[in-house]
């Protein structure tokens, strides 16, 4: 079976500073693959490169059989690779409904878009109740729901989520994590970046630990969850 996403020896630099120093991994259809690691490990840089916002200095990325390196960001979305960015980045002065419509910017099937907006409201009822409200007035957790809902609007084959639990209350975090496992159950392929390693690893099929731009450890989510080093470094255990 060929991987949906194949990253090979990817290197990314900001000026002279190399943030990602040659990483390789794959994401198979239907899997949740998780990147964990501390701040500055290069996780967000990796996602921003995959979605075309940053240009790699070396390496190759293949998504659904097509090379991604050099393709501009707005054309990568058209290949059905969705990216819900770190810090949520909803459009604050547009309404919730307008944010969701923008997620479907490249689609022209009006009825299908309407149906998918309704699906987002079913997934996150609070968004439906506030559909006419400016997105900037939502709480952090609600904004996260909107960012995820918006990313789903392009009918992605691969959904990339960057720190979906960042800054959320434990209750809200649970809600987001359970939505991620619901999405997986419905067959969605997900590349998840998280600092909350415990929650992320328990959802992940495959996981990679990143440290200063490199993958230092790989395995199944369960393997890493029970790995001594990981427990010490990321789960706060002695």
């Amino acid at each position: 079976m060929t991987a949906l996403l194949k990253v090979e020896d990817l290197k990314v630099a900001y000026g002279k500073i190399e943030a990602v120093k040659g990483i390789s991994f794959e994401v198979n259809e239907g899997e949740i693959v998780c990147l964990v690691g501390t701040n500055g490990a290069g996780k967000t840089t990796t996602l921003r490169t995959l979605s075309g916002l940053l240009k790699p200095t070396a390496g190759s990325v293949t998504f659904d059989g097509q090379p991604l390196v050099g393709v501009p960001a707005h054309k990568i979305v058209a290949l059905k690779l969705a990216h819900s960015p770190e810090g949520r980045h909803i459009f604050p002065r547009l309404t919730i409904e307008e944010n969701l419509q923008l997620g479907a910017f490249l689609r022209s099937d009006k009825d299908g878009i309407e149906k998918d907006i309704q699906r987002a409201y079913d997934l996150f009822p609070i968004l439906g109740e506030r559909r006419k409200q400016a997105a900037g007035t939502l709480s952090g957790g609600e904004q996260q729901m909107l960012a995820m809902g918006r990313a789903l609007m392009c009918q992605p084959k691969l959904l990339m989520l960057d720190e979906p639990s960042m800054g959320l209350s434990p209750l809200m975090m649970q809600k987001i994590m359970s939505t991620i496992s619901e999405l997986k159950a419905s067959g969605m392929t997900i590349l998840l970046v998280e600092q909350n390693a415990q929650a992320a690893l328990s959802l992940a099929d495959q996981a990679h630990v990143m440290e200063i731009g490199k993958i230092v450890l790989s395995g199944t989510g369960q393997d890493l969850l029970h790995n001594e080093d990981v427990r010490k470094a990321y789960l706060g255990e002695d």
Partner: protein
Amino acid sequence: MHELPQQLANGLALGALYGLIAIGYTMVYGIVQLINFAHGEIFMIGGFGALTAYAILPTGTSLLIAIPVMIIGGAICSVAVACAAERFAYRPLRSAPRLAPLITAIGLSIALQQLVWQFYPDAKKAVSFPEFTGPAFKITENLAIQRADLFVLILAPLCMLALGVFVQKSRSGRAMQATAQDPDTAKLMGINTDRIIVMAFAIGAAFAAVAAVAYGVDKGQINFEMGFILGLKAFTAAVLGGIGNIYGAMVGGVVLGLAEALSIAYIEEIPGMQQLGGGAWSNVWAFVLLIVVLLVRPQGLLGQRVTDRA
């Protein structure tokens, strides 16, 4: 005070002109945070483009028929120059420090003036522009509206209305709002932000061409330097209204136009201020108004405080 209605009408017409030009500053700033100091020259080139279009028409064409042709001719020239400036001068500097595109804009402004001065026939001095002839429309005893003023007073609201509908309702308008609020995320939605930026420059340039025709038919002449002070005033209007806000540009323009007209008429009637009134001081009062507004409302009349970029 019996001339007040007349002064208000004059101020409104002047303000509508400022507002039309101010749209160009505010749209470009709203999307790429660049003060396009060459926009005054885009306006000027719109005027010369319109004049060229007029020259092509058979002599004796009625002005009412000529004006749409002049607007189209002016807009073709101004939009072409604005898009070329974006593509070749500003886009390569998009990730450069802010000062670089700003200085480029000033250089471009001088270069465009000199190019017109050098190469447009007879442009080394003011060139005459077809003018509205015929009497003003007398509304009341104290109010008569010049044909050229009526022209801009009808056209400016129509342009604003069209722009408002475009931005709020169309797919490209929505994409434009998204790009202004968060360009990287707009790309993640599949929006070609480069195209949106070109569109912002083009719309601003087209509005400037409309303003240039309105200015020409009012004054009866145009010149290669006219973009400087009008551009500066329009920029002031954009800041006054809240830069980045399209409705703010028009509101700022009208407030500025009214302030100028009223200062010309009434400042000298204030005891002790005879020397500070009249046309010679109107620019001073315009900028005093700007300073006062910015002291009280730094974000401009309709501007938003930037708090939502958490």
